[in-house]
């Protein structure tokens, strides 16, 4: 049986000002009250279920809707306290959106939130990945030194990295659905995949600089 990790009371939470049900913990979309302006849980800020899979379009629509309630532009003629609360509320929504809309950052947040190992606790990459990394490093090394040999080496490397990226991302989604509870070994696997993805993105970035 799967355990629903979404906290049930969240969906029933009511606005402390108008009493109507809340879509977000940051602000009430009904009456415009600013509530938990320092919300650190991006899923609660957006009022969506904690899960790896998110609907990008829904997320964007929700951001715009929430910003219409919290943005400092709509508080410009109010007192300093209100203006600051609006800055904080909008900041936390922006931070939440950055996490929710980015696969890697969302996975990173979920691993930590579910009690998995942090980046410092788990520095390994997936075993199968390591052999390839040694080869890739050689190609990169050569390109850094001015690139002798195979002129297509970097192009080949790029497509290899892209393929590896797709594989690891698919793995992230698999390992995080349904969301593992604390102590689940899958959290460690996800952390390792994230380490691999960080390596891939750094390498792709470097190729970008080298070929420009």
């Amino acid at each position, binding site marked *: 049986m799967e355990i629903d990790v979404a906290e049930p009371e969240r969906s029933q939470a009511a606005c402390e000002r108008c009493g109507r049900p809340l879509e977000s913990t940051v602000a009430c979309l009904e009456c415009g009250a600013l509530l938990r302006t320092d919300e650190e849980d991006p899923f609660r800020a957006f009022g969506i279920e904690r899960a790896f899979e998110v609907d990008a379009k829904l997320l*964007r629509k929700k951001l*715009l809707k929430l*910003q*219409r309630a919290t*943005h*400092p*532009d*709509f508080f*410009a*003629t109010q007192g300093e306290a209100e203006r600051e609360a609006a*800055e*904080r509320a*909008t*900041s936390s929504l*922006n*931070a939440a*959106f*950055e996490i929710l809309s980015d696969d890697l950052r969302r996975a990173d947040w979920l691993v930590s939130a579910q009690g998995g190992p942090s980046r410092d606790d788990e520095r390994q990459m997936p075993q199968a990945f390591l052999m390839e990394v040694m080869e890739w490093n050689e190609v990169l090394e050569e390109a850094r030194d001015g690139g002798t040999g195979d002129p297509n080496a970097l192009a080949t490397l790029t497509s290899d990295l892209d393929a590896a990226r797709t594989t690891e991302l698919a793995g992230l989604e698999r390992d995080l659905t349904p969301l593992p509870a604390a102590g689940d070994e899958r959290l460690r696997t996800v952390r390792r995949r994230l380490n691999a993805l960080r390596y891939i993105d750094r390498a792709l970035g470097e190729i970008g600089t080298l070929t420009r």
Partner: protein
Amino acid sequence: MAYIELDVIQDRTEPVLGIDLGTTNSMAALFVGGKPVVLRPSDHGGVVPSAVFFADDGSTLVGGKARDRAAAEPDRALFSVKRFMGRGLDDVQQDLENVPFRTSAGPNGVIQFHVREETYTPEQISAMILGEVQRLACQALGGEAPKRAVITVPAYFDDTQRQATRTAARLAGLETLRIINEPTAASLAYGLDQRKEGTVVVYDLGGGTFDVSILAIEDGVFRVLSTAGDTHLGGDDFDRVLVQLAKQELAPKISAEDLTDPALTQSLRLAAERCKQELSRSPSAELHVSIADHGVTLRRRVTRDEYEALIGDLIQRTLALCTSALADAKLTPADVDEVVLVGGSTRTPAVRAAVEAAFGRVPHTELNPDEVVALGAAVQGHVLAGGTRDVLLLDVTPLSLGLETMGGAVEKIIHRNSPVPCSAKAGFTTYADNQTGMTFNIVQGERELAEDCRSLGRFELKGIPPMPAGMGRIAVRFAIDADGILQVTAKEETKGATASIEIHPMNGLDDDQVEAMLKASLDNAKEDFEARRVADLLIELGTMLAAVDKNMTAVNERLDPESRLEIEEAAADARALTAKGAARPGVEHAQKIRDRFEQATLPLAAVLMDNVARTALSGKALSDV
């Protein structure tokens, strides 16, 4: 209570100006009757050239008159000061080669311009320009101009440059409700005008700066996806290639020393600007300068092909930045729905052609590229004034922000193109036993080493309780507000000790300095007022003297000797005051002389009135009167 409520209502509806404080031109717009309009007095186009001229008599000219006189007397004029806002002398060496200014480093490394015996910071000069913009707005509105404004800056302005802009507004007596980015402002004006949705690229090439912003417009929300730019790339650089061309041609004719003469530089600059503008309309134009002082005339025909070859590299630099903005937004040119051109320099046909080729579509040019930024700022002003909730601008920070770590590297805390407002935290640990303080260098920029980035200032965290190395945990929080301005706070977390922060601004004025300048400008305002009053009094004395001279002989015998003597004495004083080469009197002294003169001439006036009455009434019966 009723009056309080009324105040609140008035406060809400009080309009907010939108001001484009440009390198070359500035102007104000306001949202009225459902749309933004540029504020123009009936006898004025509304454009204020961003120039200030310091005249002989101590008066200050701002705008068109200042620009016109700058050509003949460049040592008394300041222009393009936006290039120097929030900069240190080291940052602007190249800019200084192209302007005839004398400069020095002022407090906190702020640049100071020397004009005659006075020094002025870029903030003060910008404040004068803002004052003139406000004056025109006031005339156009036929009453008092709004005291609150939205002011635009290049998207690529860093924190110090934004702060300097706020300071300038404060010195001009304006409350800055919001600083917004120029391309974003343009997108607001454009998006509302054309009712467009989708992905829009704003290519903004102004006089001194280049910005490109990529936005998603959806349901009235203008969301900036990415921005890139160069605060040292603009139409002035196009002028410069023509100035260089002119100098090459002149080199055999005049000495190397004369070539660097400020007056010559200024004439060449203006000639280059005319030639550039003509080249936007015609296939060729003449670069024409005649310099009387050096007995040299230059007439050189420049073809558009030749000119376009000269500015090709500059245009390429703008396109490279477009590519980088697209990459940051994770988009390709094919994803772009519309391209909007902003800034006077986009009138250059080569620029239009290059942008069209780069994005594969004809750019929009319906809106006046010189006005669209001010119009957008007025829209934002309307939003901030509480006028509408249908429009919302979501912008990003153009440059990464971080702290210098041990060893001189940069730890980025907020990445470029993060939506604002935003905040982020970073943790540090103490590195020595019983360490009680820690110094941080706040840097802005994309480079890896702190020395390659711009230092925004240093602050010191004091009062860390004594403990072994590595035990003290310090949390530094960066917060960027909706103006794109940074606030930094730091806290020691283990013992929860409160700690104080002192930030030492770089290339920016601190509060005390701004206060001192405000006071000085008030004193100056008093001086200016008095000088004007004295000038008025002297004119009045002149008129009175002329009247006395004209009438004394005619009515001489009808005045008693005592009155005559008094008039003659008072007139002598007045003559001394108004004589050519006389020292400018104080306002009180001038007022006293004038009052005494008026008093003394009362009997004369009475006689004259009597004469007039007699002439008028002659031949009339008393009953007819």
